[in-house]
């Protein structure tokens, strides 16, 4: 197995989850309903936990320890898609992002749980159930709000339109795409995207939302290889503010 290819895959998985978990944690205490505040925080914690699991696999492959990797890199060293670094906006945007992201994430986890690369398969199998709840949560909300008031539908539709180019950016191909597919690590981004489209379409069809023609949308690529929006570096600076007081200290 090409170790570089595996690392490349692990970094994008881990970075996506770290950054989205961080973003979602910003809602804690500010949610629209007490109960939803709690649920959203749990999912944010899960995401951070998932990123830690994947950074730990990277450490086993010789990379630095998870705290160092997560808290000391700069934006141009991050492999997350631009979707996850965008500011939270209002709750409609956070929900739509959660819906678009987690419906892709569950497919990755399903595929990776069958991976020929056993360490990933083990982690994906173990954590799949958590992502399943995330998807159930996202889909339930989109179905409920997407069939409710004009106000809610308009908000969701506008967030959907705004988020889609970035969501398509999640499927930016790896430099090692074919190697990963050939080695049976997972079926690759094209396959994830095709299945994702099926699943989000099935949910959106149950609502009053409309999925724009994806062919007409230019995906926001670049995130997988360090090209980010202006929002990522400030996020990282904030995240590492205390850690960087003394990176060698035990906090």
């Amino acid at each position: 197995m090409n170790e570089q290819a595996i690392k490349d895959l692990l970094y994008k998985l881990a970075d996506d989850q770290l950054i989205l978990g961080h973003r979602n944690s910003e809602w804690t205490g500010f949610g629209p309903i007490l109960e939803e505040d709690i649920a959203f925080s749990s999912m944010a914690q899960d995401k951070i936990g998932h990123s830690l699991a994947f950074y730990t696999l990277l450490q086993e492959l010789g990379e630095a320890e998870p705290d160092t990797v997560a808290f000391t890199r700069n934006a141009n060293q991050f492999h997350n898609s631009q979707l996850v670094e965008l500011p939270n906006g209002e709750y409609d945007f956070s929900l739509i992002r959660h819906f678009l992201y987690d419906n892709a994430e569950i497919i990755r986890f399903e595929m990776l749980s069958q991976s020929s690369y056993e360490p990933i398969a083990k982690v994906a199998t173990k954590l799949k159930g958590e992502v399943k709840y995330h998807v159930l949560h996202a889909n339930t909300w989109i179905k409920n709000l997407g069939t409710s008031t004009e106000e809610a539908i308009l908000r969701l539709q506008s967030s959907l339109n705004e988020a889609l180019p970035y969501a398509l950016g999640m499927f930016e191909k790896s430099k090692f795409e074919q190697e990963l597919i050939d080695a049976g690590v997972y079926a690759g981004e094209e396959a994830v995207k095709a299945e994702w489209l099926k699943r989000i379409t099935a949910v959106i069809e149950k609502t009053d939302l409309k999925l724009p023609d994806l062919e007409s949308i230019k995906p926001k690529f670049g995130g997988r290889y360090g090209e980010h929006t202006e929002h990522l570096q400030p996020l990282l600076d904030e995240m590492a503010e205390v850690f960087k007081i003394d990176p060698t200290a035990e906090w």
Partner: protein
Amino acid sequence: MSLKSLDPRVTRLNLPEGEVPAMEPKPELDQFETYEAFHQKKEGAAYTYVGPVHAPNEDVAFLFAKEQYSRRFACTGIWIARTENIQLTLYGNDSENVYDMMRVEEPAERSEQPEPYEIFHLKKRGKAHVHAGRVMATSYLEALQEAKQQFGEKGPVVNVWVVRSKDVLQSAEEDKDMWTTIPEKKYREAIAYKVMDKITKYKEENKPTTAQ
């Protein structure tokens, strides 16, 4: 705002400045109706009452109850029932059996065919209602009578809840994997935090202790 927020999240909220008029009272149901949640601690255990959630419908109530009531400690399933659909007896004294005090009235409404009802017992005031079992009946009252015959003999029952089975949303068998990793989330358990070693080491290195 007299104080620039120390919380960068609050700064990003762009709070309105200066005096703001009092908030209008929240409309009724702004926080939605209530649902009662029951959890199962382990396979085969009786479902036990954990508490209410406010939600717009039972699907959302399930999403809420799952995180509010089962984000810690082992869980294998959750039941949700709309509060409105649960009927209850009066509360007896501790060590009494309310079934013995029941005056059974003729039910106002009956279904044509018997249907299943879930019965929950409270054994002692201050504790939680526990699922006693299921009975077939054509009304809440008949269900209560059935419950008295089937489960009423076993010790004190301070209070009984009765709810039609079809009004209970039960998590599915295939949903169980949503809870499998809960016991591993040690970071939210007290047991994960052990600092005696650090304290002992500190004290040893700093003898004689800074006596106060």
